[in-house]
């Protein structure tokens, strides 16, 4: 915009939308913090019935964790490809990230159904409730991420390239995606391993 220069912007030196997005991510910490706190409080308590340790499958979850971790790599490669203006590669890596995310989601759905069949249901006991709400809330984040990635990939595919504006969107989706990944890094340790 020609007159945008007359109006000064961004005294902080951080692009406005990016700044807003980081504020959003900072508050996401509190969302997951509350969930994890609740989980830990109930983890230390006695509760009747079946426990997570009776039903879970560590090798399986390790693999799906690994898949999500690697999707962060493909995401960062997509971002990198865009920075070097390699539109073709950007789209490939975007799609790869979305697919890896979808694999993780499929794994989570499989895991949930398995647990359900073994009698570990949402209202079985306080532990199962917190488990499902916590991991489900994370799963919802992954799902939203996959939708966003696919939408961006679709736009890129149709236009044979991403515009400057959409490139910024890619950066936000990347930040969001990595954030979802670090949440899982914490959850994998807190929920499954310890």
């Amino acid at each position: 915009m020609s007159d945008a220069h007359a109006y000064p912007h961004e005294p902080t030196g951080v692009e406005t939308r990016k700044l807003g997005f980081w504020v959003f991510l900072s508050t996401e910490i509190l969302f997951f913090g509350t969930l994890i706190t609740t989980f830990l409080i109930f983890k230390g308590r006695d509760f009747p019935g079946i426990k997570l340790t009776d039903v879970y499958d560590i090798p399986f979850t390790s693999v799906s964790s690994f898949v999500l971790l690697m999707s962060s790599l493909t995401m960062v490669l997509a971002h990198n490809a865009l920075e070097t203006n390699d539109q073709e590669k950007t789209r490939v890596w975007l799609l790869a990230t979305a697919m890896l995310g979808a694999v993780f989601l499929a794994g989570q759905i499989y895991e949930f159904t398995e647990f359900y069949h073994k009698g570990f249901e949402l209202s079985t006991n306080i532990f199962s409730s917190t488990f499902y709400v916590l991991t489900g809330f994370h799963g919802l984040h992954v799902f939203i991420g996959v939708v966003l990635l696919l939408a961006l990939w679709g736009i890129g595919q149709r236009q044979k390239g991403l515009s400057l504006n959409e490139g910024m969107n890619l950066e936000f989706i990347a930040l969001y995606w990595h954030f979802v990944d670090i949440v899982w890094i914490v959850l994998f340790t807190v929920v499954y391993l310890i």
Partner: protein
Amino acid sequence: MTKIIEPKKQRNIFSRPSSEEGVWSWITTVDHKRIGIMYGYAAFFFLLVGGLEALLLRIQLSQPDNNFLSAAEYNAMFTMHGTTMIFLAIMPISAAFFNYLLPLQIGARDVAFPRLNALSFWIFIAGGLFLYSTFLFGTAGAPEGGYLAEEVSRLASAPNGGWFGYQPNAGLKYSPGTAMDYWAIGLQILGIASLVSAFNFITTILNMRTKGMRLMRMPVFTWMTFAVSFLLAFSLPIIAIALFFVTFDRQFGTTFFLTEGGGDPVLWQHLFWLFGHPEVYILILPAFGIVSEVLPTFSRKPLFGYPAIVFAGFGIAFIGFGVWAHHMFASAISPVAQAGFGLSTMIIAVPTGVKIFNWLGTIWGGRLTLNTPMLFALGFIGMFVIGGLSGVTHSVVPADTQQTDTYYIVAHFHYVLFGGALFGIFSGLYFWFPKVWGRMYNETMGKIHFWLMIIGFNLTFGPMHWLGLQGQVRRTWVYAEETNLGFWNLIVTIGAFILAIATLVFMANWIYSRRKGEVAPFDPWDARTIEWSIPSPTPVWNFSNAPEVKSLDDFWHQKYGEDEDGRAVRREGTDELLLQLEEEGLNPKEEIHLPSPSYFPVVMAFGLPFLGYAIIYKSIPLALIGVIMLLIGGFGWGTEPLEEEFESSEEEPESGESKNYE
């Protein structure tokens, strides 16, 4: 004249709204001023509703053993009164001030994310309507064998578990029916609205400041907005998750807060007050900001100790996160926590006290103009000090356990939130009336309003102190004749009706002055901050040129210099300067591109209540409607540029084509 260029139409899901007048222009607006005005009117409407509910409560309590309201109705009324006043009245009125003033005070053309701003507003409306739809669709049954097992009227078919929703009382067993679900999900939706606006305001303040507007040159009101936004951003997620748990408990059979399933009701109290106490400062800090603008203007002195007042504001915001358990001294918390939170409650009085002394220092030796905004600001100081002092008494744990759940507490927080927040808000409403409408309010009626209000206020809430200390219990619909509480309760009720009359005077003044008030002169108050350096009512484009700020209270220093004794002396040529500013403000030299209106925020916002109903009634079609509205809104939003392409800007490359990144 002005050159606002007609946008070129672009294809999207809906064609871009283009009307500039009429209902649709307001519904689709992204202009922070219009959004601010709508926030104000909507919040005032809810303030009236909440006030009406309070009057019903007071009629019931006006004499012992009254049966004007049933117990069930009383429960619903006090719950809705609290919820309405906090989430639907005071918070959004503050948001109205933020919206209207923040960009003006930092010299910006709009907020950082104008459409997000519209989204916040419409989510607030959607949430408010959703919450109040409980009177139409909600049901509040009676727990089995409970004393509420009488026929439940429509009036009682509202949330009845208190605005704090303590568990397990607000759980399915003791609050059957759907009313408390409306409450939980309604607050969830309202929370999203505030959260989104918090991101917006933080980013706006950091990144939209005009040239020379360093942080330490920002008006105090802007600073307080900043602090409030942080409080919102970091406290609302906690309550959001807690409300999530409540909804799961009530809808899907989990037991997060119910002991019978191994859950933890005290955890709800922690999570609720982790949000709830910052919330108190969310309500009061905007009023601090307003008063810090009004007092210097009408004392004709700079604000005493500007840095102190700014840091005290942030001190309050920060310590405000560390005092939540003082709401829980009567709950299961450890002695260490009791001591610790007692201490932190005393400590938070220090920055608050700093502010009070700063305000007193500001008016000390000033040439005071006692008009309505100033009277309300002074009333604010007085009433807030009373509320603050009774607040400190709660930090003494043994005393607090006696006061818990009595009218003493009710007296305390009404002195803080009514005598504090609302007086500050009224002060601001009068102060910025000429800015918003370009007309003056009626001073006589304003003064009548103030005096009725301060008398009515003290009659209403003053006696509650000793009623509480005599043992009258909160949230209880009757008291016995033998308690001898009848006399003062009658006085309280009379006071409440005086407040109602005062509010009518205010409304009459507002409606009359909006149409027939004197036309406001440029800079009617000889004010200090740059929002007064532009014409009133504010032009759509705010500032014709980006102003350059050279000092704190920049507008004042443009008008006034100092003599040898440090007294303010009006510069020569100030009158010409004002004329010139008015002329420039009305006639921008360059083309001004404003963000274009959009349908999508409204579409998205009204998707949320459908999701709410879908959860309550387990209805897939409703959920689908909600999701589709969110998707249409989100997709349309994402593919719609903030500003339409303009015919004249041909040197700009067309958007939509692929461009190099960076």
